Structure formats: structure tokens, C-alpha cells
């Protein structure tokens, strides 16, 4: 019998649950990158356009949020050492979220606000189910580590972002929100980025990057600056946009400090790692971290009115969403998906017969191609978004779309092992030819 406050060993969620989320997220990523090619002229104009809202929500909900939720069903047991409470609930939640996100994107595209409001209501139900599942999984939790605090902060941010977004949708049909529209819209965007996605990435990376890099966890000052920079910065930025202007600059600087501490830790860890070689997943996450610098600079510049206008805002969105967040998720998925597939296909046979390693499940040429195209595509898209030239934006979108295809191909190869795993795996070839001179 399990005791309150302690994990219940032996219970585990099927790997197919997080894999379902991650496959849907990857499909949304592919759709969004193809959408950039299609929406080049709109992207050269003002960002508040129904089709661009559809594109944005394909990225933020379909790609980023589904990926984080799927990963959390694998990573919560690892980083917080708690079993997931409801596997069936997680399956239902995915179905609801896929319908809701599809409905929202379609209604944004059509410019139909009543339909959008209904889909947003369904999305809120799906997110509430996720919060319920995570909340029940964390019942009696007592080890409030850096990661645990940031996870709770992130889920608080998700709940607020959802309520805020639903209020925006309802206000389009029955206007009730006070204040100017664009600052309110910006507050919703920043709440999602800084209150939901950023703390979740910082939380999870603090536990899983040391595992991947074979390196130490963040030092106390890294953790302190990340935690308090986010805790103080995200609400300050949102409140600053909503009508307390004095908080905006202070919030932006706090966020920049958190981003700086996060980047400093990652590069310090990468420099002092025990693992000599870097696979493509790790190269992705290191490159993604580099995008924090332009993201923080643009954020502070916009907060202090040194840079203004829709072109800068779009470039900021590309650098943050496409550079830091998306490349981090791509890198993490190249590590997580092989593990889940391996666990499903081969772990029951491990110890009884030869099983492949994770590296043998992966497809490095496709991952390398995805790395070149996606990182190059993001840089190109940020630059062309700043310039506002439709044809160049389309070209950048084409590079990103090809990169997404290479990424999808790499994942498909790994997923194929779910079926190939039924066959006997051949013995691993010799890995080293000589003993080092001791």
C-alpha cells in the first residue's frame, strides 16, 4: 500500500499516451511551417490578421502546448518522481484538445468569432482536465525543488493564459474587456510565453539536461535567478502591459536576468560535461539557447520603446517561438521519442535478449538535415519578418518546411520500431577494438 506523499512504485503510464501527444504536436509543426509559405504576404503586413492568428495558434497550441503536455506525461514521473494519476483521462484530454485546437485554428482562419469562442471553451475543458490530472498526480507532494516550483508556476500560468484567452474570445462576441485592445492582446501573448512555456522549459531542462549531457544540475545562483526572475518578471510584464506601465521595464529586465542565468548554466554545463560527443538532439537544444540572447534584447528594447512596431514584434515572436522554444522542443523530442519507443518496444525484452540502444533507433542524417534547415530557416525568417518582404518570407518558410519534413522523417523512422520491435534485434556490433593503456 502506498503512503501519502510518497511515489507509488510500480505504476506507469503507457508510452503510447505521451507519444500520441508528441506525434500530434509534430504534425502541427509541419502544418505551421507549410503555412508560413502560404501566408507570406500576410506575414509581410500587420500581425493582427485572422490567418496569422490561425498560424500563431497552430504553433502555440498545436505544436508547443501539445508537445509540453505530452512530454510532461513522460517527464513528471522522472523529474518529480510521481506516477501519473489518470491514463484514461490523458487519452480523453488529447482527443478533446485536438478537436479544440483544430476548431480554433479553423475559426481563426475563417474569422468566425462565435465558432472560435465555442472551440476556445472546449480547449479550456481539455486544459482543465490536464491540470486536474497533474494536480492529482502531485497530491501529497512535499519535495519543493527548483523544478517542482517552476512546474507549479507554469501550470498556474497555463490556467491564467487559458482564462485570459477565453475572455478575449468571448469579448469579441460580447465586448466586456476594459482598456485598449492591443496591449491586452500583448499581455495574453506574454502570459503564454513567460508564464506557461518559459517556466516549463526551465523546470524540465534543470533535471533532464544533466542526464543528457552527463553534467551537474544548476548551481544555486543559476536557480535563484531563473526562479525569481520568472516569478517576478512574468506578472510584472503582464501587469505592465495591462495598465501599470512602471512594471513593464522592471519585468522585462527580470525576465532577461532569468534568461541570462539559464543560458549561462546551459553553456557552463555543456562546457564541463562528461559526455564527449553531442548528438543532434543536444545540438538543437544548445543552438536554441543561443536564441535567448536576441529574444531578451528585443524584449527589453520593446519594453523601453527603443524598438517599436509590428515588424519588430513579429521578429521577436519568430526568435522566441521559432528559435528558443521550437528548437528546444525539437531537440527534446529527438531524445524523448526514441526513449518512449524503446521503452514500449524493447524494455520487456531487456536483460533477456539483445536489444538496441537509443542511438540505434535514431536516424542521424535526417536529424542533421533538420538541424541545418530549421536553424537556418528560423534565422532567415526572423530577418525577413523584420524587413517585411513577402517573397523572402516565403523562401524562409520553404526552408523551415523542408526542415520540418526532415524532422518528421527522423521521428517516423524511430516510431517504426514500435512495429519492428516485434522482431528479434541482432547483437550489437563491436564498439571498441582495443583496451586503453592503463
Amino acid at each position, binding site marked *: 500500500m502506498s503512503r501519502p506523499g510518497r511515489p507509488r512504485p510500480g505504476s506507469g503510464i503507457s508510452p503510447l499516451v505521451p507519444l500520441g501527444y508528441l506525434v500530434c504536436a509534430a504534425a502541427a509543426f509541419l502544418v505551421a511551417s507549410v503555412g508560413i509559405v502560404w501566408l507570406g504576404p500576410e506575414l509581410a503586413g500587420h500581425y493582427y490578421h485572422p490567418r496569422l492568428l490561425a498560424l500563431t495558434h497552430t504553433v502555440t497550441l498545436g505544436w508547443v502546448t501539445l508537445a509540453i503536455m505530452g512530454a510532461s506525461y513522460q517527464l513528471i514521473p522522472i523529474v518529480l518522481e510521481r506516477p501519473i494519476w489518470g491514463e484514461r483521462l490523458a487519452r480523453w484530454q488529447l482527443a478533446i484538445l485536438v478537436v479544440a485546437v483544430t476548431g480554433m485554428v479553423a475559426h481563426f482562419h475563417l474569422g468566425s468569432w462565435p465558432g472560435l469562442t465555442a472551440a476556445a471553451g472546449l480547449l479550456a475543458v481539455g486544459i482543465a482536465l490536464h491540470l486536474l490530472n497533474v494536480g492529482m498526480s502531485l497530491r501529497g507532494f512535499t519535495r519543493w525543488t527548483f523544478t517542482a516550483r517552476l512546474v507549479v508556476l507554469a501550470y498556474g500560468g497555463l490556467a491564467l493564459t487559458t482564462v485570459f484567452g477565453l475572455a478575449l474570445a468571448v469579448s469579441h462576441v460580447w465586448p466586456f474587456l476594459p482598456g485598449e485592445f492591443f496591449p491586452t492582446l500583448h499581455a495574453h501573448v506574454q502570459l503564454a510565453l513567460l508564464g506557461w512555456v518559459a517556466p516549463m522549459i526551465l523546470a524540465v531542462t534543470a533535471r533532464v539536461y544533466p542526464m543528457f549531457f552527463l553534467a551537474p544540475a544548476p548551481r544555486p545562483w543559476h536557480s535563484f535567478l531563473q526562479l525569481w526572475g520568472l516569478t517576478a518578471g512574468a506578472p510584472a510584464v503582464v501587469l505592465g502591459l495591462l495598465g501599470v506601465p512602471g512594471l513593464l521595464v522592471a519585468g522585462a529586465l527580470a525576465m532577461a536576468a532569468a534568461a541570462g542565468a539559464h543560458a549561462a548554466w546551459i553553456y557552463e554545463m555543456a562546457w564541463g560535461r562528461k559526455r564527449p560527443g553531442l548528438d543532434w538532439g543536444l545540438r538543437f537544444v544548445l543552438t536554441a539557447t543561443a536564441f535567448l540572447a536576441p529574444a531578451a534584447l528585443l524584449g527589453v528594447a520593446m519594453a523601453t520603446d527603443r524598438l517599436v512596431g509590428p515588424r519588430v514584434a513579429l521578429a521577436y515572436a519568430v526568435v522566441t517561438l521559432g528559435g528558443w522554444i521550437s528548437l528546444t522542443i525539437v531537440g527534446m523530442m529527438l531524445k524523448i521519442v526514441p526513449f518512449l519507443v524503446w*521503452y514500449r518496444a524493447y524494455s520487456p525484452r531487456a536483460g533477456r535478449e539483445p536489444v538496441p540502444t*537509443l542511438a540505434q533507433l535514431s536516424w542521424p542524417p535526417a536529424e542533421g538535415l533538420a538541424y541545418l534547415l530549421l536553424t537556418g530557416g528560423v534565422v532567415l525568417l526572423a530577418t525577413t519578418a523584420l524587413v517585411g518582404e513577402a517573397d523572402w518570407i516565403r523562401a524562409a518558410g520553404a526552408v523551415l518546411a523542408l526542415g520540418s519534413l526532415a524532422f518528421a522523417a527522423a521521428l517516423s523512422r524511430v516510431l517504426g520500431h514500435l512495429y519492428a520491435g516485434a522482431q528479434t534485434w541482432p547483437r550489437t556490433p563491436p*564498439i571498441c577494438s582495443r*583496451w*586503453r593503456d592503463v
Partner: protein
Amino acid sequence: MMPSEIPAARVYLDVCEVIQRGEEPFARIMAAVNALAADQALVLRVPFEPIPLYKVLGKRGFAHWAECRAADDWSVGFYRDRAPSREEAAAGALARDRTVLDVRGLEPPQPMVRVLEEIDRLGPGAELEVHHDRRPMFLYPQLDERGLIHETDEPEPGLVRILVRRGAA
């Protein structure tokens, strides 16, 4: 061929992945050797026969045996080449049927693979003590499915200890 007088209590160390990563396994091996009790043997898993190591440890009074399971899969054991004193034997009696497997510092899923491989060799009444970086939440279902009993504790920061034994038939 394994000699009959070698100690029953064994500490297992797998350095295949360390070598695969291009790292030097010597320090890790020597740390394990230094931590050996008088009546314990160290069983190394290596991808080839570590002939120079025989000489190094031989100078320190260790005998060895080697078992070639495949061209790239060797189990090599080291044990002190003398009879333990009465006190040493008494102290080691408690650990006779317990083997220790340290999987800290390995990238997932290697810890799980190593544990499951070791469990497959676990005899009746024998115990496996696993030293891990964290509670292995994905390992527990595998242990349950194989009918194994397990207990987890954290004797010190950064060390999670899992004791695994076979359940009653």
C-alpha cells in the same frame, strides 16, 4: 573458467558505455577496486579482454578470471588472491548473496538495461542492490512484471538505493 574459491559476494561494474563514449574507465575501475570488501569480487563488463589490467591489479594482489560471452562482451572478475581472515569473513557473510550495481552517471535507458540484465542472473535468495541517481519510475513496472520485490530508499543526497530480490515462487 571461473575458479571455485572466488568470493560469492560481488560488485558489478559495466564500463562498456564509458568506453563507447571515448572516456577513460580506469579511474572508475580503481574506485570500485578500492571500495571492495575483503571477501568481495569485482566483476567488470568490458567490450574486450582487458589484458593490461590483469598486470596492474595483479601487482596489488588480485587474481582474475575472464569469461568471453561474445567477441565484444567480456565479463572479467577480480578478487584478492588470499584467504580472508576470520573477522573479514564474518563481516562479509552478511553481504554474501547481495551484489551491488552502480548505474549512476549512465544516460537513460542504460541504467534500466543494466539492472534488467543483472536481474536475469539473480539466483534464488540473492539480492541486487542498485545505486541510482534518481528513483527509476520507468524501471518499477518492469520489476513488477518480472515478479520481483523491490524497496527504495535514499541513504544520502544524490544516491537512491534500490534493493531487488525475487519473490516467493
